[in-house]
């Protein structure tokens, strides 16, 4: 089941998050909804990201693919170059550079869609709370049997209201 609780202050939310984690919940069981980004110090609700690695991988892949493509395309039909090399890294460098950057751009964008859950809903059945300006909602996934304990923790932390959703 899910508990949806509303908070008006970030400090209260931090207290709730720490207490819930102490009670045995993992960051995967917790989700905060707000109309603006909320920043926490490290260790409160960490969301490890592999986006920068994905960007580097995308850059390397497209950069290498584009350079190889130019190499093979130029060797496919060897035009008369007057003694100049058929393939030159100097002249291809710009294409390599731009395509490397394009690879990083695409990889970042697709990784954003993936990691944010916009194209891969982690839990499609999970309720999404309605959030108003200046309010924050905390969604907690828990076993039905322990719901009362968590409701107590949320109230003690300073939440305004809590709703149970099955």
């Amino acid at each position, binding site marked *: 089941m899910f508990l949806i609780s509303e908070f008006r202050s970030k400090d209260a939310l931090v207290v709730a998050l720490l207490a819930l984690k102490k009670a045995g919940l993992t960051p995967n069981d917790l989700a905060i909804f707000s109309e603006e*980004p909320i920043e926490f110090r490290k260790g409160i609700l960490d969301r490890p*990201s592999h986006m*920068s690695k994905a960007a580097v991988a995308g850059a390397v892949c497209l950069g290498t693919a584009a350079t190889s493509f130019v190499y093979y395309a*130029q060797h496919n039909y060897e035009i008369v170059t007057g003694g100049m090399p058929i393939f030159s890294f100097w*002249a291809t460098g710009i294409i390599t550079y*731009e395509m490397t950057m394009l690879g990083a*751009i*695409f990889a970042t964008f697709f990784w954003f869609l993936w990691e944010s*859950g*916009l194209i891969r809903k982690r839990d499609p059945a999970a309720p999404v709370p309605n959030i108003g300006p200046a309010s924050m909602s905390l969604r907690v996934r828990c076993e039905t049997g322990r719901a009362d304990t968590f409701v107590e923790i949320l109230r003690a932390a300073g939440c305004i209201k809590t709703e149970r959703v099955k």
Partner: protein
Amino acid sequence: MAEHPELLPYGIIREDLFRPLSRAGRKWWFTVAVCFLLVLAGLAAWGVQLRDGLGVTGLNRPVFWGLYIVDFVFWIGISHAGTLISAILRLTDAAWRKPVTRAAEAITLFALMIGGLFPIIHLGRAWFFYWLIPYPNARLMWPNFRSPLVWDLTAIVTYVTGSAIYLYLPLIPDMAQLGAHNKPWRRKLYRALSLGWTGSDREWHALEMAMKLNAVIILAVAISVHTVVAWDFSMSIAPTWHSSIFGPYFVVGAIFSGIGALIIVMATLRHTLHLENYLIKRHFDNMSKLMLTMSLLWFYFTMSEHITIWYGNEPKEMAVFGQRTRGDYAFWFWTMVVVNFVIPVILLGIKKLRSIKTAVIASVGVLIGMWLERYLIVIPTLVTPRLASATSFYSPSWVELMITVATFAAMIMLYLLFARLFPIIAVWEYKPHSPEEED
């Protein structure tokens, strides 16, 4: 005028910034209609060129590059307003950037769309544009990857893609909010574009991460794009073009003209959309300081470029130098120096004179000056004869002038339409906070 707009309640901020989307005054419709007619006239002029060939332009041997290439370089330069400035401000976490970034990013996208059209218009037979796309022809020959034209294609495609994504990403949360209440067709549009954004911390975290990464990448791309545009010139062994500082010189000029365009857009939006509480004097003051810095840098590069030509005393280079500084183009050259350097230094350098009005005046001058700079780079070199028999002149025809005017109209029209469809200031970034946080 609000001294600290960030202290306004969130509800008021949201209402103020979403209001322009639901109302359009007569002035808006009139301006869009006039711009649309001018765009149609430009398309008609292009139609004439497509039907009759490049003979309808002022291009002639040996002036094969004319107004279209000038416009191409100018618009690609303007495109540096947005993404580059926005990325620098975002990476340095300059809090005052918040009302400025989206307006700047939109300039980039539209300027690139317009600038990217010019090489195609310049081709004459525009329908053969696809020859640039890397695929083999019937004789299994591929495009010449050594050609700066192919470099341009890859650079501009990368920049357009990156800029579109960079503009789109921070729009997602705003569109999700707009999807909740609006006319049915707008609701559908915003909901589709916001991809089911819920405002969860995972989404915010991924968005901030993507924005930071994109800002780094787009900075590198933006610098490379105008460098590649500069290399279109400096890779040819033509007098005054074959210069090693052309890359950075073009980048500096691009940022300079970009800031000018941004100040004009900011002032226009402030006036027409009644954003006086959000685009305040502090923003114009900071932008003016940036423009002043770029003006000094531009002058330094122009000096370096010309003093080395003068000192080298190469006859072919001196012929172009003479044309620019005391020949047929002298009036335009010195006008360029006045509007790009003298006026900004006086209006923006003297604190008492610095205001929104003077920033706009200086910016209009800078745009004119930077367009003239592109003209003075392209035309005098080609016009100046390298063979005694090859005397020539260049005067743009009505077709070229009409197409140029139409691109300015297209820019205004696209911008006005964008400002009616999407909030021009990122609402979620403009959350209420204390002035201390701003510092």
